[in-house]
């Protein structure tokens, strides 16, 4: 069969099971767009390449499948950089196809040439420049394989225009095994370490499970739950781990770290065994590292050997698929009787009673943002897919939305990318049209990718945006308030568009909410929208703060606020 490079590309995508790609055209990818013109693959036209990248990422997080995006060379590719880095920092499997100038022009500073494989070297799991059409199929297969296996991550495939134009003999033959000398998919684990871990778990009297995004990536929520419940071990989660264990269950401690709950941070500080599962001891989690879990022996389970011992010393390191390792541990542990760890669980109950998440009433008469999240939680039964932007909106979501299932929180944890949430929500809604999908936003962040409203309207995606509109870059203002004598340097956002008119201009629905008694009706109205996105503009207290918090550099025991 004689096929053009671009046709082979689409053929390979279909072999990988890709049915949707997010993209933005341009000169260098004209051959690919021409092939897409009569392809079965659904192409969703973003309004900015960053939007396409985050949408592919949101699609991947919501489903566990590899997200795909396609952009042109030069500015198209560089516009993707933030989205790629976001996926890299959170270990999200996406494959990004970037157009490139023709092979003979590479290195000549040709029009719209950018060295995207060079630029993305430190922010991809791997990347490729395809030099020959003949190599295309192997490279595409490797790209997907690398993106989704072991510790997942983004892969960039750079496609020179002539490589896409060239016609070659192509046989869509069988799927030979992928064999990459320098890359092996991790199987198995060190069984001696499993025995050591089991011993420690049996001996512990104050154990805590510390679960991260790796539990979700490894589809190991069930195994985590088995371990926690069988052994009565309380579970705290990182931002990336929320949903790994149901946040509404008694054993959940919620999030730990800088904006963790007091009881999670106290539990970690007092525990005698910390079982870290698919987490990486990030500085936002550990805060002052020397004081982190000072009394605990630590078991660290992770697929990435480089994470083990990177930030803290580990007593029992176990490299492997989180799911497999937990299964092995569970198989060696019997169920404990009711009342096991009794004293420890009582201590934790006492902390929970003494230091629940709570917030004061409004000081300026406006809505309290935490209340909005509580209402969203209540009215969606805790079953929506929630994306967030970055800042206070993100932390309040982590506090007050009790995620019950994995893959229901989409948030930029590692990079903290403002502008991530809305396009990610679009990607998730495309992947899961039957789910309610909501982006919890700040008035600053939402302006970073607001142009994607056109996508949601065009594609008839009833995504809901809840702007917690404090007329500030809230999180930065909070720090200025706490640590810079309220010198609110350039964080005032009161000059802003009328979000209702803006929504309407795009063809979406806009509702402003300023009173408590309007909150519920507005959310319900948004939830009822069948084919139009809805912007809910909640005017919230301008100077509400996220509490409790660990001031940077302090230890987890020293939390401030939230009393």
């Amino acid at each position: 069969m004689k096929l053009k490079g671009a046709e082979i590309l689409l053929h390979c995508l279909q072999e990988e099971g890709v049915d949707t790609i997010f993209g933005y055209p341009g000169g260098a990818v004209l051959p690919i767009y021409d092939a897409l013109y009569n392809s079965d693959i659904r192409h969703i036209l973003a309004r900015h390449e960053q939007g396409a990248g985050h949408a592919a990422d949101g699609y991947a997080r919501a489903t566990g499948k590899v997200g795909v995006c396609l952009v042109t060379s030069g500015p198209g590719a560089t516009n993707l950089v933030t989205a790629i880095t976001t996926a890299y920092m959170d270990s999200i499997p996406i494959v990004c196809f970037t157009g490139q100038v023709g092979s003979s022009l590479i290195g000549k500073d040709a029009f719209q040439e950018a060295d995207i494989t060079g630029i993305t070297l430190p922010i991809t799991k791997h990347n490729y420049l395809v030099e020959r059409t003949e190599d295309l199929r192997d490279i595409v297969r490797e790209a997907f394989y690398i993106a989704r296996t072991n510790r997942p991550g983004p892969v960039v495939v750079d496609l020179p225009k002539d490589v896409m134009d060239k016609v070659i003999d192509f046989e869509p033959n069988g799927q030979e095994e992928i064999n990459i000398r320098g890359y092996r998919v991790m199987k198995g684990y060190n069984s001696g370490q499993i025995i050591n871990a089991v011993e420690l778990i049996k001996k512990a009297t104050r154990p805590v499970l510390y679960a991260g995004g790796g539990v979700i990536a490894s589809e190991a929520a069930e195994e985590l739950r088995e371990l926690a419940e069988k052994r009565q071990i309380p579970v705290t989660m990182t931002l990336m781990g929320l949903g790994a264990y149901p946040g509404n269950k008694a054993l959940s401690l919620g999030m730990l770290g800088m904006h963790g709950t007091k009881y999670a941070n106290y539990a970690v500080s007092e525990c005698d065994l910390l079982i870290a599962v698919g987490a990486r001891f990030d500085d936002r989690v550990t805060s002052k590292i020397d004081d982190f879990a000072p009394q605990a022996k630590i078991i660290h389970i992770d697929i990435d050997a480089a994470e083990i011992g990177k930030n803290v010393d580990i007593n029992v390191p176990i490299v492997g698929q989180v799911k497999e390792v937990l299964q092995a541990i569970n198989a060696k542990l019997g169920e404990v009787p009711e009342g096991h760890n009794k004293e420890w669980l009582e201590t934790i109950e006492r902390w929970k009673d003494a230091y629940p998440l709570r917030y004061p009433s409004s000081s300026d008469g406006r809505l309290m943002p935490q209340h909005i999240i509580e209402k969203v939680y209540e009215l969606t039964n805790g079953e929506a897919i929630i994306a967030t932007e970055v800042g206070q909106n993100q932390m309040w979501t982590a506090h007050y939305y009790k995620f019950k299932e994995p893959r229901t929180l989409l948030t930029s944890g590692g990079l903290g990318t403002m502008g991530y949430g809305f396009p990610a929500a679009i990607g998730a809604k495309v992947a899961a049209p039957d789910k309610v999908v909501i982006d919890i936003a700040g008035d600053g962040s939402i302006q970073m990718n607001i142009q994607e409203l056109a996508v949601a309207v065009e594609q008839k995606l009833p995504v809901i945006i809840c702007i917690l509109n404090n007329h500030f870059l809230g999180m930065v203002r909070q720090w200025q308030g706490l640590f810079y004598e309220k010198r609110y340097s350039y964080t005032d956002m009161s000059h802003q568009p009328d979000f209702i008119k803006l929504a309407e201009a795009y063809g979406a629905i806009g509702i402003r909410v300023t009173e408590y008694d309007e909150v519920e009706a507005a959310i319900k109205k948004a939830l009822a929208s069948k084919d139009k996105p809805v912007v809910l503009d909640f005017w919230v207290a301008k100077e509400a703060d996220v509490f409790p918090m660990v001031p940077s550099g302090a230890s987890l025991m020293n939390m401030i606020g939230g009393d």
Partner: protein
Amino acid sequence: MAKANKHTLAVTVENKPGVLTRVTTLFRRRGYNIESLAVGATEDPNISRMTIEVDGDDKIIEQVTKQLYKLIDVIKIVDITEERSVDRELVLIKVRADTNVRAEIVQIVEIFRARIVDIGRTTLIIEATGDAGKISAIEDSLRPFGIVELVRTGKIAMVRGTTK
């Protein structure tokens, strides 16, 4: 804390464009210090071999190794610091050599079993091969004459005996 010291890593990589950049980018990004790096072909045309000297305690070397392994194009890493190995480096030294000192220089060259590979009007280029100690020694011996230019290849190394 473990003591800081030099480690020699023998790193087998795919012979593909960009692999060297991947390795050096990783060192730069993570803040590891490369003391010397030599890269070249091996008996297999698809595989290159890097010899990297890196400064750091055992913990850093462990991180370097694990991070390097994450590069898809890295096939194998062996820390040969403690192995019985043959280490070699080549150096070219252009030294000032007026007629009155030439004889003395020639003598030094002979002692080190080095070679004179170019004779200029007022300079000589000397080529020497050896382990780091020998290279430093010849450099020290020639310095008094005035070194005009010096270039070292960086160390390459191979484990002795039959193991690979």
